[in-house]
Each structure stands twice: as structure tokens, then as C-alpha cells.
């Protein structure tokens, strides 16, 4: 999972999230990542519209494939990765893992919106209606999306921050395990053979198409990682500000450093 290491904050300390004002910076590797993403996405667009041949039977409409499928794959891997981060949070009690799990799901849901939108447009273009039930991957993606959307009401309906982080992690793990099972069940239920175009990802695509697809996939994956790093940086900045405000407003300490607030990672079990 290449992106897991990419967004690991460069100066990772086990107490990275413990707020004693010198905590970890998430934004360190952001600039190179952003540059790489823009370059890759630009090449993707160029390849899609000037290099990849038109699909034999779907024609020009098939070009949506290069955006729709990578978004779906990256979103799903993001969800499963969020489950791993949730497990890491439960094991190490380090709140930064909970933040990563939250942001990973948040990004997955945003990418999910794009997947469903582009999927609907593609369905309208090639099959004449905005939604098709006999398209198993689209249907199972919708179910996964409906599940992950409930992450927000779950998170905001728990007051105690420690418990909220724990329950969010349990959700991330459960939903992460759900993704493959859901695909199996829906795939078995749809007796209709998968339309030719989408199962081309199995590699029997002509060379140019596969190259374009792989570049697109890399571009979208990097986009996911960059946006996630951006979100983590902004969340961390806002959290630091809240700490700073508490520190300044608390007239009892009047600026003296109060005890660190975040939880101590218990000895890993």
C-alpha cells in the first residue's frame, strides 16, 4: 500500500498527537506530492483524449472509464485502509490514527460521490438510463457508499471524545471487512455477465488503453493521498489553535503550560 508510507508524517514520533505544542507537522511532504499529482493528472488527460483509441463498440463514451473506475478503486482501497488505521488506533490508542481513519473515510466518501456521478453519466450515455441495477460493481459501490455515509452521524452523536474515537475506529474496521463481502454477495446475485468494457480491467485491454488506465489510476491515487494530507494538516492546525486558545484563556495558568491533554498510548496489548 504505497500511499500508507507516503502520508506518514516525516517526523513521526509515537506521541505525535500528544499536544505539547511541538507535535508533528503533517504538511511537510505536501508540496512535492501536489506537484506529482498535477503532473500525473495532466498526463492522464492528455493520454485519454489524444492517445487511447476509441473503444470498439462503446465509442467515445468509454473515455469516462478512465476517470470512473480509478476513482472507485481508490475510494474502496481508501475505505479498507481506513479500517486498518482504525485497528491501529485501537491498538496504539494514538489519536493521530483516529484522525487518519476519519480523513481516509471522508476522502473516500467524496471520491464516492464522484464515482456515482460519473457512473450515472456513463450509464445514461451508453445504456440510456441514469441508473442500472444489472451493473454489479456500481450497485455494490452504492451499498458501500450508503454505509460509509453513516460514519458522520455516528461520529457526531457521541459526546465523549475518547469513546467517539474508539467507536469510529470500530465502525471503520467493521465497514472495511464489509466491503469485500458485499462485493461477493452482489456479484453472485447479478446473474447478468459483467458488461465487456468494465471487465477489461482484467487486462485483456489493448496496450494503449491499459497504459492510460494505469496512469489515470496512479494520478487519482496520488490525488487521494495529497488531499488526505491537506485535510490532516488543516485538522491538526485547527486542533493546535484550539489548544493555544485554551492555554491563553485559562487564567489560572495564565500561559504556563498545562498538563498534556491527549491520551497516553497504553502498552500495546
Amino acid at each position, binding site marked *: 500500500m504505497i500511499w500508507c508510507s507516503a502520508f506518514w508524517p516525516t517526523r513521526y514520533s509515537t506521541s505525535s498527537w500528544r499536544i505539547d505544542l511541538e507535535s508533528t507537522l503533517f504538511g511537510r511532504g505536501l508540496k512535492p506530492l501536489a506537484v506529482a499529482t498535477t503532473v500525473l493528472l495532466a498526463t492522464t488527460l492528455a493520454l485519454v483524449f489524444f492517445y487511447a483509441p476509441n473503444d470498439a463498440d462503446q465509442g467515445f463514451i468509454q473515455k469516462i472509464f478512465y476517470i470512473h473506475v480509478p476513482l472507485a478503486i481508490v475510494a474502496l482501497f481508501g475505505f479498507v485502509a481506513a479500517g486498518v488505521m482504525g485497528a491501529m488506533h*485501537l491498538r496504539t490508542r494514538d489519536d493521530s490514527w483516529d484522525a487518519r481513519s476519519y480523513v481516509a473515510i471522508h476522502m473516500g466518501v467524496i471520491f464516492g460521490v464522484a464515482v456515482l456521478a460519473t457512473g450515472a453519466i456513463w450509464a445514461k450515455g451508453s445504456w440510456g438510463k441514469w441508473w442500472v441495477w444489472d451493473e454489479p460493481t456500481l450497485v455494490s459501490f452504492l*451499498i*458501500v457508499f*450508503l*454505509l460509509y455515509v*453513516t460514519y458522520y*452521524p*455516528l461520529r457526531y*452523536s*457521541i*459526546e465523549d471524545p475518547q*469513546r467517539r474515537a*474508539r*467507536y469510529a*475506529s*470500530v*465502525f471503520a*474496521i*467493521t*465497514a472495511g*471487512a*464489509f466491503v469485500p*463481502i*458485499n462485493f*461477493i*454477495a*452482489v456479484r*453472485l*446475485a447479478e446473474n447478468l455477465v459483467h458488461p465487456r468494457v468494465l471487465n477489461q480491467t482484467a487486462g485483456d485491454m489493448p496496450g494503449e488503453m491499459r497504459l492510460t488506465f494505469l496512469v489515470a489510476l496512479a494520478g487519482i491515487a496520488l490525488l487521494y493521498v495529497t488531499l488526505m494530507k491537506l485535510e490532516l494538516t488543516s485538522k491538526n492546525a485547527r486542533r493546535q489553535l484550539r489548544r493555544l486558545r485554551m492555554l491563553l484563556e485559562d487564567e489560572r495558568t495564565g500561559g504556563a503550560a498545562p498538563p498534556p491533554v491527549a491520551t497516553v498510548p497504553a502498552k500495546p496489548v
Partner: protein
Amino acid sequence: MRAIAAIARKDLLVELRTKESVPAMALFAVTTFVIFHFGLDRDRLEGELAAGVLWVTLLFAAILGINRLFVAEREQGGFDGILMAPIERTSLLIAKAGALIVYLVALELIALPVFALFFIDQGFWDAVPRLAAVILLADLGLAVVGAMLASIAVHTRARDLLLPILLLPLTVPVVIAAAAATKPLLSVPLETSGVAKWVAVLALYDLVFGLLAYAVFDFLMED
């Protein structure tokens, strides 16, 4: 084991005394069948339509029972009493899932005959043995995921709203598999093709989420 028996026994005793969950679930199911009759405007159902009506009704009736599962613990201090006791905390999950299976079976003992009476002409009773296996496996899946989600939802503010929206997507595979397995059993003439495949999917679901719920439950109870 002692703790599981103690908690399950307590739950069933409270249910027998208050008759809070099962009657409500049964009434809900029968009324839903009537609504389906008018909604679909059908006097007789078979095959996938029958399977669909049956499983959608059972799923939503189950939600009523799951919503009530941990309310007594939350409102009457049962959580503190149990979490302070020298027991494996996962016994609470197993006991609650077990109690939920008992409620579901009680619901099905009432709802299925009514369903057959309303919609099935004949041949229902020779489908029952296989149907019972499918139903039990589905109940196990609902019970495990339901008990885990109920223990999460009960600690939140909007628990009656949160539980259904969390549970429904998660139990889609159960409904798909159960309905697909029930379809041949309720078709006229009775078939049995494909039932095994879907029973396998149900078993896989129960196994994965059973292990997962067991593994994470301690974290849900910790404070």
C-alpha cells in the same frame, strides 16, 4: 460461560415479564404483510417476490428488537453492574446475541405461519426444513451484527435513528443471500437449486462478522 447464561437468563426473564420486544415485532410483521398485500395488490406470492416480502418484513421487524436490546442496561445502570463483575465482557455480546436469536425465532414462529396463510397456496410445509436452516443462519448474522451495533448505538444521542441507518447497509448481504436462498424454496414447484451457494454466503457472513464483533467488543465496552 456462567456469565453468558446469567445475562441471557436475565434478559429472557425481563422479556417474559415485560413482553416488550417479541409481541411488538410479531405485530409489526403481520401488519407489514397486510401492507404488502395492498402495496403489491397480490393475493398469492411465490418465488422471488415471496422471498422478498418475507425477508424485508423480517429484517425491519428485527430492527425493533435490536433497538431495545441494551436499553435496560443503559437506563437502569445494568452496564455498570455487568462491567464491574469479574467476567469476560464479550459474554455480554454473546448473551445479547443469543437473546436476540430467541426473539427472532419467536417472531418467525408467529410470522411464518401467517405469511403462509396470507400468500402461499400449497407446498410451504415441505419447504420448511430447508427454509429453517436458511432462516437460522440469517438470524445468526442479524443477531451478531445487531448486538454489536446496538451496543454502539445505545451510547449515542440519536440511537433510534442511528441503529437502522447503520444496520441496513451492513445487512444487505444477509438479505441478498437469504432472499436468494428462499426464492427456489418458495417457488411453485419447489426447487432446491442454488440454495447451497447462498447458504455458504450466509455462513461466511456469520463467521466474518462473528469473529469481528467478538474481537472489537471489549473496545466498545471500555471507558
